[in-house]
């Protein structure tokens, strides 16, 4: 893409404005504006810098927080588990040595890195944002080009503030019309993944557009962009608009005063030009979406809550039939079982997908005045200390506690089971997280992905439940 007069997409514009140099084969040195760092994928990168005698080029553009394996129970006495403690201590000594800003565990600003970035105003339209975590796609909700990288690239960004990249292809997903009652951003993105598959977006950056996307609040847009990676795309984007500006205004790291006005003027130039070309276009009708749950071990295995466990024999190839049979065996499900008859053992509400205040409000609205079903363990893990504080100010913690939910400290928690929050083998979980892979929430654990309201509904009935039957 040149910088001439040809109409450009939002992605093209951000890309073009960040190319430091184009190498002969088309690989670009791409400038990175914001680098988020956490404890799991950074130790080897800092070690690499140290061994090469390099420094962090821009500590002021780098932000660190521990989230993946921090405990979500009382942590006033530090971290019990020796390996987790070592990883967090290693991060703390690295940020001290290299001068990187850090939100410590005791700081209210600590939380899941993808909740913290937008919350602090670190993530802004038109920026390039990277992190050693695939759910970095979340920040695309603000109109930033944000994607996950491996640890070697973390080291590359720390040392050079750039990455070697080739431009991705442009995919437009247009969601027309309005989401029906009971459907949320989570149902929307699950519907998209169900439609295009987990490799559907490979090689692409997805721009989400259309009335249903414009209608979403910023939290909903973050939920959608978050799971772009589950559709195979490294990044998802939503064009910045007045909602984006209102969300950012006044946040600690957002520009202020005259700088704010200049920034907004620039941000308004970012949306895709009329006639901009996309390599792939997908159209969905929002009014056809119903509350969804996953039944298998890939995020593309979605089914309406009113539906049943599918039959592997309906697949077209033997490889696919074998894969689906393996999934059903792992999930302990039989074809034809109504999804609403599937009983759950655990409910997890949280994660970078659905750990924001809006998600907790939606779950609390269902939990209010009800009780967690007998034998079910239900936990709420706010996405950050500030989300937790806000929820407590609104009395949501009381709603959850009175209903029998655990109210925990911020972190990634049972989304990936790196800390003590894990499923036991065979346990079935209604989860607001992003991946239902085998063993993701603990060895042998069985995950059904869904929205926060649907997870809360499962908690109070003890089975997968159509939330539309509980709320009016």
């Amino acid at each position: 893409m040149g910088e001439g007069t040809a109409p450009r997409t939002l992605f093209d514009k951000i890309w073009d404005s960040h190319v430091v140099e184009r190498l002969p084969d088309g690989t670009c040195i791409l400038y990175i504006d914001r680098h988020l760092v956490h404890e799991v994928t950074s130790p080897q990168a800092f070690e690499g810098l140290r061994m090469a005698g390099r420094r962090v080029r821009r500590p002021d553009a780098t932000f660190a927080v521990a989230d993946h394996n921090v405990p979500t129970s009382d942590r006033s006495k530090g971290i019990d588990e020796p390996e987790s403690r070592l990883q967090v201590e290693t991060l703390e000594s690295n940020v001290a040595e290299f001068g990187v800003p850090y939100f410590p565990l005791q700081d209210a600003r600590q939380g899941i890195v993808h909740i913290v970035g937008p919350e602090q105003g670190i993530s802004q339209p038109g920026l390039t944002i990277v992190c050693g975590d695939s759910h970095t796609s979340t920040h695309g909700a603000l109109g930033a080009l944000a994607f996950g990288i491996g640890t070697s690239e973390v080291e590359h960004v720390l040392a050079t503030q750039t990455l070697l990249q080739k431009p991705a292809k442009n995919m437009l997903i247009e969601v027309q019309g309005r989401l029906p009652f009971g459907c949320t951003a989570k149902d929307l993105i699950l519907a998209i993944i169900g439609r295009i598959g987990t490799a559907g977006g490979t090689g692409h950056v997805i721009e989400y557009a259309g009335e249903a996307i414009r209608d979403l609040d910023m939290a909903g847009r973050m939920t959608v962009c978050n799971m772009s990676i589950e559709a195979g795309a490294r990044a998802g984007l939503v064009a910045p608009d007045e909602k984006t500006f209102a969300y950012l205004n006044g946040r600690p790291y957002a520009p202020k005063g005259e700088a704010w006005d200049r920034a907004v003027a620039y941000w308004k130039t970012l949306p895709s030009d009329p006639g901009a070309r996309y390599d792939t276009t997908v159209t969905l009708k929002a009014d056809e979406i119903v509350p969804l749950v996953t039944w298998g071990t890939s995020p593309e295995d979605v089914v309406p809550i009113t539906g049943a466990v599918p039959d592997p024999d309906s697949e077209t190839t033997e490889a696919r039939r074998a894969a689906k049979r393996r999934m059903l065996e792992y999930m302990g499900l039989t074809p034809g079982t109504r999804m609403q008859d599937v009983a759950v053992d655990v409910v997890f509400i949280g994660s970078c997908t659905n750990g924001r205040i809006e998600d907790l409000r939606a779950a609390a609205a269902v939990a209010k005045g009800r009780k967690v079903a007998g034998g079910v363990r239900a936990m709420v893990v706010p996405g950050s200390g500030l989300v937790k504080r806000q929820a407590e100010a609104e009395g949501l913690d009381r709603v959850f506690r009175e209903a029998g939910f655990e109210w925990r400290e911020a972190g990634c928690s049972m989304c990936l089971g790196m800390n003590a929050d894990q499923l036991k083998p065979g346990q079935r979980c209604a989860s607001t997280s992003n991946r239902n892979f085998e063993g993701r929430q603990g060895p042998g654990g069985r995950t059904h992905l869904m929205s926060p309201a649907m997870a809360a509904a499962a908690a109070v009935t003890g089975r997968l439940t159509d939330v539309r039957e509980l709320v009016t």
Partner: protein
Amino acid sequence: MQPFTTLTGIAAPLPIPNVDTDKIIPARFLKTIKRSGLGKNLFDAMRYRADGSEDPDFILNREPYRRAEILVAGPNFGCGSSREHAPWALLDFGIRCVIAPGFADIFYNNCFKNGILPIKLPPAICDALMEDAKLGANARLMIDLERQVVVRPNGEEIRFEIDPFRKHCLLHGLDDIGQTLAHAAKIDAYEAKRRAAEPWLFA
């Protein structure tokens, strides 16, 4: 990084679609601050039974595949997380080349940073290579990166495509950071321009 030029070795068949990074290396093994030592937990859930013993049905627990250096895999291999622990675990086990009909973007990229060659080939060709990989002691493939060919046990050569820059780096075991820093003056100039235009992004 160890250069990749040619590789002749045992190819193990793993005909499963969407092998995700949690399957390659579960999150609970990511609590390390080193790159090495992850090979023992490669494909942990498939490789070991609940009591910790090896599952003899899993391909990499069988001879000659314990010594596999090449993996022939299903579509969308490496989907999921960005964890570089996935290629580190493969490398630590001894795998230096993965052949599949498709890879997830981040995993694909991470391979090149660690001297692992991911080769994308059409599904029908992968099916043929999958059959080759089932030949036990004869499941040997030869990879020649310079010539961009996979040589089958029957001698047939299959050409593959690879990005020229990545090929160059892999052939010579080049460190990306050193190469990028050769352009440091360009980065300085770019940064100065941005600092003038958007000073609020700089502390």
